[in-house]
Each structure stands twice: as structure tokens, then as C-alpha cells.
């Protein structure tokens, strides 16, 4: 294991994770709203925000799918050291991380009728993340809001599966926003 | 003029101070030591360990002292402590055939290799109050007999050899941990057994008794009841072998129950199983009977609608910590809910009286 794999995690796990979770929760509760996180320095090309989400939510109980963009020995070592999350194929992923065009969306579990929560949460690394672009409405949004989504139809299709569906966390640098299955995109 | 009542904080502090005083009782009487409880109230300690799911006689004894002898309260203390403990690893499954038996009886064979060993049992004692214990409790030492060396084979293994008992293959999969994953139904047998072994003794006893009285009767013979110490081993992958990390006393009960079979399958006896921490044989026998009753589906039996067959009913209501918490919570303030009921019932009564009056007028 290279030394830099053992760096860049939370300095004070309980406190840092509590702040990070608040940012993630607000993102999921208010789709489209961009929060900022800081402190974590994962190996390239993983963003600070994506690394923060992994350290906050992943552990040996959450199989993780790495898209090719993020499947490097450094990232694997870093994730293993800090979270112990096992790596898995898309079909069994609780979490998945990678570049938008490298995530096999059709393959991830989107829950069952009795357990719609058993679906993958995707951490999508984007080159930009701004409050302009697709129009969002639904739970968590007062009237409507905008977010620079990497697509439209795919999210409309996903929302139609409700209560099943995938949930998305978008990351870019230290910024984070989310799009749960309930959000209507136009 | 009305001044709002305050003082929740002070009331709590005062109540706790009073509780501490009451726990100690009359200070002219010697204080009970944890060691005394551990040694002289060992069966209470065993029950607290079993239902607390934590094998530590000293902590269980401390919990009993702190709980003023209320065993469910003591179990609660142990459970709450247990959740804070880090998990280093899982042990290998214990091997009960290697048990150093203090007690081992079979109801199905008059004698068997390893023999019938009564051990320190209440059985055949006449339940007469022993007033000597009130004066001084010192007793003569019990005679020491010859112990048989070597393992004591399970009675079931003799039936197994003849294929008279339905076989239970060793599973490769590690079963889910009831304390780490939410219970999901239908539950696997491994999960049911986990639940039963920490279940309330009284509840399981009642359920087992109900099967004997005909509510899903499954005609149990105690093939074997054994109590004794077994070693706990842990596998060290780096070393490539297992090391012994300690020894625990457990009670194991295996029952032989009514047989199943069909035109194509020769009949076989079926099994019920109980395994409980410590010397806890009433619980272990009860557990085996309830385990067997819950197996109706996998053994192709009919649902007789008996309580002991209903896994959801048994598993959701057998935990005394859940039960006592929810039961006792009804003494907490509910005046907001009650107020809404008061308003509703007054309104409904008003409407009903108006209706009656109107009908009378017509």
C-alpha cells in the first residue's frame, strides 16, 4: 500500500462525518440545492465531495461499484483503508461511483416493490455543477429549481419507476447536489 | 390565578437519589457483593447472560445488584452495555460434542455412551423450605465421583447413523446477525434460533407449554439435555489455525419429534433445538419445543393457526426488553392524545344526543 493511500481522510471522524452527513442530507432533502464540503483529499480523479460521501456513508456493509474512471489501485486502497467497503459488480451495488458516461445505469438494482429502499445510490462525478440547466420539481423543492444535470430523459424514466428507482448524488470539487427518484425533471 | 408547574429536572434528580438509597436498603445489613451474587445467585446470573446476549458473569451479577434483583431490568442494563462494545471478529461455531458435561440426561434411551449424569439439579429435590439456610448456609462438600474421560457423543448421532432422524447439514453461509440487521420475515431457522435464545424465558415457556397442550402439538422427546463448558475458538487467518480464547457454559437440548414421511420418502423423526448460555435448562427445553413448532412450513406440516406456529407472533413478542419498554411507556404523559380523544368523544356525544332528541320530538 502506498503511503498516500493512508492520507486524506477525516481528521476527526465523528465530528467531520456529522457535518458531512448534514450536507448530504440537505442535498437529498432539497434536490438541486448545492452544498459544499471540505477536508477530505482522496486520490485523483476522485473529488473531495465524492470522497466525503464515501467516508460518511460506506463501510464493510455496503458493496461499492467503481466505474472504470475511478477503478485505480490508489482509489481502491484508499477506500479499503478508510471504509472497508467491498468492491462489487453493478448488479449488487449499494453505492456506485464514477463518471456519468461510465455508470451502467440499466444494471443497478432499483429496489423491489416491498423494499424500494434496496436500490443503488450513485455518486456521479461531474465536470461542472451549477444551479442552471434542467428544471426540477417535486418533494423537497418549493416551486421549482434548476440544476446542471448530465441528461434529462434518463431521470424522467427513473422518476417513472417511483417508488422504485435510483438515487443520485452529484459531485464536483467540493460541491454536492442530489436528485432522488421523486424529482420531476423537465 | 394559575402558575404553570415546572421542575421536571429536579424531580428526576430527587427520584434517582431516592432509588439509590432504596437499592442499598437498611445499612445495618451487610452490603451484597457482586461476587456473592455471581456465586450464590448463579441461575439468575445465567438468565441475565442468556437474555442479555453477553457472556460475562461478573457484569451480569453487577447488573442484578444495580437492578435490585429485577432480572428484566438487569438484562436491559446488559443489553445497553453490549451494544457499545466493539466487535473484533466472530468465533468459530462451538462444538458441543466436546463439552465437559456437568449434566447430561437422555429421556429416549435408558443408557448410552457417556452415561446419564444428573449433575447439580433441582430434580428430585423435595421442595421443602430448608430452614438451615436461614441460619447458616454452610454445606458439606459433595462426594467426588469418577469422571469419564473423552468426548460425550450426542444421542442424536446414534439415530442419525440409522437415518432415523432428519439430517441437518452444516451450512456454509454465515447467518445474519439479529442484532445488526433488522428482522425480516420469513426468517431463516438460524435467525429464529438467535431470537429464541435471547427471548424471555417466561414467554418461551408459555409458548412451549401451549404446544404440549395441543396448540400445534409436536410430541417432543428430550433426546438429550446437556450442560457444561465448551471452548470458544477463533480462527486467525494470518496463522492458518484456530486459537482458544475462552470457555463458556451452555445448555443444549435436542428433541426428537413426531416423524414425517410420504409414499416416496421413508418416515424420519424431526428435530427441535435449544442452546442457551449458562445453566438454563427450562429455557433450553422450551426453546427446542418452540423451534420445532416454528418449523411447520419447512417440514410440510399444516398451519394449525396455533400461536407457537406463528413466527411473526413469536419473534415479534418474545423480547422482554422490547416488550417491557413499550408496555411501560404507557405511563408516560399522553395528555395531548387523550385531549384529542376527549374532544372527539364530547363532540360525538353531543351529536348523538341531538339525534336522539330530534327522534323523540318526531
Amino acid at each position, binding site marked *: 500500500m502506498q503511503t498516500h493511500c493512508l492520507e486524506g481522510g477525516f481528521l476527526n471522524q*465523528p*465530528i467531520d*462525518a*456529522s457535518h458531512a*452527513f448534514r450536507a*448530504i*442530507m*440537505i442535498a*437529498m*432533502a*432539497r434536490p438541486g440545492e448545492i452544498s459544499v464540503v471540505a477536508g477530505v483529499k482522496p486520490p485523483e480523479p476522485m473529488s473531495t465531495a465524492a470522497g466525503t460521501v464515501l467516508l*460518511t*456513508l*460506506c*463501510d464493510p456493509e455496503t458493496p461499492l461499484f467503481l466505474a472504470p474512471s475511478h477503478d485505480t489501485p490508489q482509489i481502491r486502497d484508499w477506500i479499503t483503508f478508510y471504509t472497508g467497503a467491498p468492491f462489487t459488480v453493478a448488479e449488487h451495488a449499494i453505492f456506485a461511483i464514477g463518471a456519468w458516461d461510465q455508470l451502467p445505469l440499466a444494471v443497478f438494482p432499483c429496489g423491489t*416493490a*416491498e423494499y*424500494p*429502499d434496496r436500490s443503488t*445510490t450513485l455518486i456521479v462525478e461531474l465536470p461542472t455543477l451549477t444551479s442552471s440547466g434542467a428544471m426540477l420539481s*417535486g*418533494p*423537497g*423543492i*418549493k416551486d421549482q429549481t434548476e440544476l446542471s444535470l448530465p441528461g434529462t430523459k434518463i431521470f424522467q424514466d427513473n422518476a417513472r419507476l*417511483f*417508488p422504485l*428507482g435510483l*438515487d443520485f448524488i452529484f459531485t464536483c470539487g467540493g460541491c454536492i447536489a442530489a436528485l*432522488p*427518484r*421523486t424529482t420531476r425533471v423537465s | *390565578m*394559575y402558575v*404553570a408547574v415546572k421542575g*421536571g*429536572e429536579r424531580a428526576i434528580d430527587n427520584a434517582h437519589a431516592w432509588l439509590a438509597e432504596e437499592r442499598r436498603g437498611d445499612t445495618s445489613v451487610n452490603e451484597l457483593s457482586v461476587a456473592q451474587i455471581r456465586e450464590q445467585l448463579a441461575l439468575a446470573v445465567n438468565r441475565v447472560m442468556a437474555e442479555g446476549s453477553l457472556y460475562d458473569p461478573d457484569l451480569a451479577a453487577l447488573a442484578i445488584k444495580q437492578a435490585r434483583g429485577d432480572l428484566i431490568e438487569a438484562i436491559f442494563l446488559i443489553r*445497553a452495555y*453490549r*451494544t457499545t462494545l466493539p466487535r473484533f471478529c466472530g468465533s468459530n461455531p462451538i462444538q458441543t460434542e466436546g463439552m465437559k458435561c456437568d449434566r447430561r440426561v437422555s429421556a429416549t434411551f435408558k443408557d448410552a455412551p457417556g452415561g446419564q449424569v444428573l449433575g447439580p439439579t433441582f430434580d428430585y429435590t423435595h421442595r421443602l423450605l430448608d430452614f438451615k439456610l436461614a441460619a447458616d448456609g454452610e454445606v458439606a462438600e459433595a462426594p467426588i465421583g469418577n469422571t469419564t474421560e473423552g468426548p460425550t457423543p450426542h444421542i442424536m448421532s446414534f439415530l442419525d447413523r440409522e437415518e432415523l432422524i432428519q439430517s441437518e447439514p452444516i451450512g456454509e453461509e454465515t447467518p445474519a446477525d439479529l442484532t*445488526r*440487521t*433488522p428482522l425480516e420475515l420469513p426468517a431463516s431457522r438460524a435467525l429464529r434460533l438467535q431470537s429464541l435464545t435471547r427471548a424471555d424465558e417466561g414467554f418461551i415457556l408459555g409458548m412451549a407449554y401451549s404446544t404440549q397442550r395441543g396448540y400445534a402439538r409436536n410430541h417432543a422427546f428430550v433426546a438429550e439435555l446437556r450442560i457444561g463448558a465448551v471452548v470458544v475458538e477463533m480462527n486467525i487467518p494470518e496463522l492458518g489455525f484456530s486459537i482458544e480464547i475462552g470457555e463458556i457454559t451452555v445448555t443444549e437440548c435436542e428433541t426428537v419429534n413426531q416423524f414425517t414421511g410420504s409414499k416416496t420418502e421413508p418416515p424420519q423423526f424431526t428435530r427441535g433445538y435449544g442452546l442457551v448460555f449458562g445453566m438454563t435448562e427450562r429455557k433450553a427445553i422450551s426453546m427446542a419445543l418452540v423451534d420445532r413448532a416454528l418449523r411447520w412450513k419447512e417440514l410440510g406440516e399444516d398451519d394449525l393457526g396455533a400461536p407457537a406456529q406463528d413466527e411473526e407472533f413469536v419473534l415479534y413478542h418474545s423480547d422482554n426488553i422490547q416488550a417491557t*419498554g*413499550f408496555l*411501560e*411507556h404507557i405511563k*408516560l*404523559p*399522553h*395528555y*395531548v*392524545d387523550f*385531549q*384529542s380523544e376527549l*374532544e*372527539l368523544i364530547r363532540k*360525538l356525544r353531543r*351529536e*348523538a344526543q341531538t339525534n336522539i332528541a330530534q327522534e323523540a320530538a318526531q
Partner: protein
Amino acid sequence: MSDYNFAYLDEQTKRMIRRAILKGLAIPGYQVPFASREMPMPYGWGTGGVQVSAAVLTPDDTFKVIDQGADDTTNAVSIRRFFQKTAGIAVTEATADASVIQTRHRIPEQVLRSDQIIVYQVPIPEPLRFLEPSEVETRKMHSLEEYGLMHVKLYEDISQHGDIATAYAYPVKVEGRYVMDPSPIPKFDNPKLEMAGIQLFGAGREQRIYAIPPYTKVVSLDFEDYPFQPTKADHACDLCAATDSYLDELIVDDEGSRMFMCSDTDYCSTRRKQGHNGAQGVPYAEDAA
């Protein structure tokens, strides 16, 4: 601070709860199973709410705990102390000053802001439980959106009593999909379930977490000819003269005389500080002295 981990729970348990909260927010009104831990307080006394609060709180939060609307009821005091001890956080009785509010049986009268989080303690999270005791069956009903049983029950109430005979824990439908138990709040509070803050529900013994994101559609079940009506005692508060707050009814003498006062103690004292004085109240300053 203390020897405990921040907010008592170990980090792995918090992660498990946090994952459940996120799925709850993504599927409003759906009950997410979670591996509830044994807490150092009894099941049925708020262990679900306590676990959710422990997973949500940060050291920067200001925490408020109410039971029946009051900050000084014994169980509220006990839970507030627990977090003071294990998380070292600031606490308050003022609704406006709180960033996280844990509650049993009430929603504060003051409208919650978008930066506030409310955590409900839930005894029985399953709204269909008293109509169908089996968890296997109720889970199936939710999956099929089969809520006929609930409507039959409400309708039977009307035919027997001329009115829906549910006064608290009044069922709601969330975002047009899941029927949800709003916890045993009086139905007076149901309209407040559509709010700007984040609502989290924790049921420890029953091992369920669920959530309502801000601005989510929450509709109390009813019939066209028997529309849902939030009700309260037909009085003004005898201490602060409020006419818009939910009231407790107190028996004040041997003759059974009644007085009514706000169940939300912060709302009442804030009004009294502002100079509002009810029929039996004394000015705030005299009371405090």
C-alpha cells in the same frame, strides 16, 4: 465532554442510520427498516427518535426536546440531558433558536423554517397495524398501494359515529403514494406536516425510519362528504389568550373545574413575554419571580 463517542452511537451504527435516513428522504412516507440498537433508555421511550437525532446532530446544533409540546416534561428532560452529556451540544427551549427539535406527540405551533429539522418519536410506525397485525401482510399492502382497508375503517367510523373516530395518529398520504402514520400527534397538527423543514421519523423498537422532505404533499385521509377537520378545544388559552394553539385541559380543583392552556409551552411563554395575558394568567414577570 465524556468518554462516549460523539452523540453516543458508534460510527458504524450512525452510518447505517444515515443511509436509512437518505433512503427515507428519497421515498417519502416509506418505512425503511434499520437495525435499531439497544439504547440506554427503554424501547417505547423515544429510542427511535434518539437514534435518528444522534445520527443527525453536529456539534454546531442547538437542540430542543419536547414531549406533549412541553420542554420540561420528565422524558423530554431526560433525552435533552442525554445529548448534553454525550454530544456536548447547546440546548434551548425556544423553538426559533433550535436547529434540531426532537418531539413526542406534537408539532410546535411556530412555523418551522427551512433550516430546521424535526425528529419524531414513533411508537407504531405502521398505519395499517391496527387493521392488520401481520407485518408480512401490511408490507404487501404498501407494495400494492392497497389501502382499501383503511378507507373501510374510516367509513365504518362514519356509519357508526357519524364522524371519523380518529383523533390522533391520523393517517396521511404522502406525495400521493404511501399511507403514513404521522406519529401520535393530535390531528390538529396534521396540516403542519407540509412544512419547510426536514421531517424525520424514528421507531426504535419497530426498527423503522421514515421521512418527509420539505414541501412534500401530505394529505390527511378523508371523504368528500366528510372532509378532514383539525380540531382543538373550543377555548382560548387561559394563560396567554391564544386562540390558535392546541390546548391542554387541566383539572384545577376538587369540584372538577377546568382550565385550558397551550400544550406548546414555548409558544405560551413567548406570548406571555410579549404581554398577552389569558383569563387566569398572571403577567409573565410575576410568574418568573
